[in-house]
């Protein structure tokens, strides 16, 4: 294209020169329309929601497939039995009468679609063959079993990996298949956990090339660098992280953990600088100053919401506990990816979707301790404090002038279940 023919005509030259200086400021809705067009609504929130719902459904579905029965046996010398059906819908209590004293077998029925009499009879016959064969009658045996329904009329009793059970030579004729042995392993080793951790977020400024002094949340700290003097104040904000994880037992007290987690971080920062300075921790001001698009502000606020997805990988140790209560301590490292960021600053005409200048990949570490309580239906509730620290700055130097470290203190609320 041979653009710009020779403007030999002075009238044309006049028109061109005059109109060149003509500018109009578009309305804010124009940018919003452009933005919505070039950035169609993100699929990831819906995708994440679906994944969580799917895991949730699986989580609810798992108890329906595994029939967990607790047997508590006292006395192992039994000759006669009598089965009494408890009036409770989900709980059956059988009495086994021997020559000298009563022995109780308590079965807690988790799945209501199993016929109660069949379950009780089955458990009774199995335990009769294996346990009541001349062992020490004073020894207490607690045996966890999983009953897997093979067909409508046949049930398999699968003892958990309990050495004591083997010692009693459980003669369970129908659990010799591979499926049963797989179930045996899974039932012991894996746990699925859903959790949410609301908490308070803090920001700590650190040294960078242009800024030499740090500031800690809630404290004004001045920073004099090559470009001017800055003051940055970060407010404590309410953050949230939520996700799911699979925990695998590798020994009696140690288990490994891996999962996926969404971190919501809110940054609320006020930065002040002189007319020649850039902000310490405010990418918007730094960006605007560098681009000279806006007048340099003596003070500005930066209010951003960051959405990270992370993959926590770590380990947990059981400190102490019993059948119901357990106390754990754990730690994870979390490679994290910044999926989205939205911010609004006081000098922008629009809400800013500000991934610009923000570090996409980061690394978090969290340490936590929590207690768990196991309900009768097998669901385990978790509650405890958690501390998470972000190792790398939120901002991506050298694009931005400031650096920070974020940390978060929260309360973990979770539910988990064996599968």
């Amino acid at each position, binding site marked *: 294209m041979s653009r710009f023919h020779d403007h030999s005509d002075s*009238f044309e030259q*006049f028109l061109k020169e005059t109109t060149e200086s*003509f500018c*109009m400021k578009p309305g804010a809705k124009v940018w919003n329309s452009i933005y919505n067009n*070039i950035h169609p609504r993100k699929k990831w929130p819906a995708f994440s929601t679906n994944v969580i719902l799917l895991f949730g459904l699986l989580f609810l579905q798992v108890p329906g497939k595994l029939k967990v029965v607790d047997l508590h046996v006292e006395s192992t010398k039994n000759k006669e039995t009598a089965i009494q059906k408890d009036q409770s819908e989900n709980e059956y209590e059988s009495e086994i009468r021997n020559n000298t004293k009563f022995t109780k077998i308590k079965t807690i029925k988790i799945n209501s679609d199993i016929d109660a009499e069949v379950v009780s009879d089955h458990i009774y016959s199995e335990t009769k063959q294996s346990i009541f064969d001349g062992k020490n009658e004073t020894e207490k045996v607690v045996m966890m079993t999983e009953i897997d329904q093979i067909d409508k009329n046949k049930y398999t009793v699968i003892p958990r990996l309990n050495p004591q059970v083997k010692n009693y030579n459980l003669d369970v004729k129908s659990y010799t298949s591979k499926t049963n042995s797989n179930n045996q392993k899974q039932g012991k080793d894996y746990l699925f956990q859903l959790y949410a951790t609301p908490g308070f977020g803090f920001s700590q400024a650190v040294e960078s090339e242009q800024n030499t002094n740090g500031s800690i949340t809630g404290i004004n700290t001045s920073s004099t660098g090559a470009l001017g003097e800055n003051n940055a104040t970060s407010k404590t904000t309410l953050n949230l992280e939520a996700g799911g994880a699979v925990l695998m037992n590798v020994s009696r007290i140690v288990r490994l953990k891996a999962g996926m987690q969404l971190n919501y971080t809110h940054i609320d920062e006020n930065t002040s600088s002189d007319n020649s300075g850039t902000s310490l921790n405010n990418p918007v001001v730094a960006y605007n100053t560098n*681009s000279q698009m806006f007048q340099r502000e003596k003070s500005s606020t930066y209010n951003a919401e960051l959405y990270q997805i992370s993959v926590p990988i770590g380990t947990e140790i059981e400190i102490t506990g019993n059948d119901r209560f357990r106390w754990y301590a754990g730690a994870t490292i979390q490679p994290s990816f910044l999926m989205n960021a939205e911010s609004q600053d006081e000098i922008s005409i629009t809400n*800013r979707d500000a991934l*610009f200048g923000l570090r996409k990949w980061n690394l978090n570490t969290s340490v936590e301790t929590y207690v768990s309580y196991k309900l009768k239906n097998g669901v385990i509730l978790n509650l405890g404090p958690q501390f998470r620290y972000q190792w790398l700055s939120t901002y991506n130097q050298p694009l931005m002038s400031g650096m920070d470290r974020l940390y978060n203190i929260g309360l973990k609320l979770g539910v988990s279940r064996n599968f």
Partner: protein
Amino acid sequence: MTEEKMISGIIDKNKAAQEWLYQKYSPKMLGICYRYAKSRMDAEDMLQEGFIKVYQEIHQYRGDGSLEGWIRRVVVNTCINILKKTKKFSDTIDISNAESLHSSYNIVPSFIQAKQVVECIRLLPIGYRTVLNLYAIEGYSHREIAGMLEIEESTSRSQYSRAKNMLEHMLIRLDILPENIKTKHQNS
């Protein structure tokens, strides 16, 4: 922040870089769209479509000329394409409307000179002002304009001649034209 970095940021769909480009060039581009449009609202629609194309095709910018020039070309082409959807430029355009313009001269607002000139251009019939914008301000040749508007080259020349004549009259009446141009025009 260098322009190269921002361009690569836009190619990577960096949202802040995209906004930076918009903030920097949208006022001038809206001024250009305004010269082609019937109203400010139409101009903003043109600007919107133009910038969407800029973001979609910025990877084609090779750095041969200025970024502003490249954006301007994309925006002008967008304006032309939008106008072509509703207007046949091959028509003998709006002569009756053009004749009535003489009574409109006096309503041209007296803002700054650039604003006055632009408003005068906008008073021209759409075909006239499109050819005038493309030839006198954007610098396209009549052959190129003929191709863009799908008209004969001679039509482009004649429409430009009429547009120029009409605009000069308006600017003279408003006393906007510099003396040297005014004198030249009056002599011709």
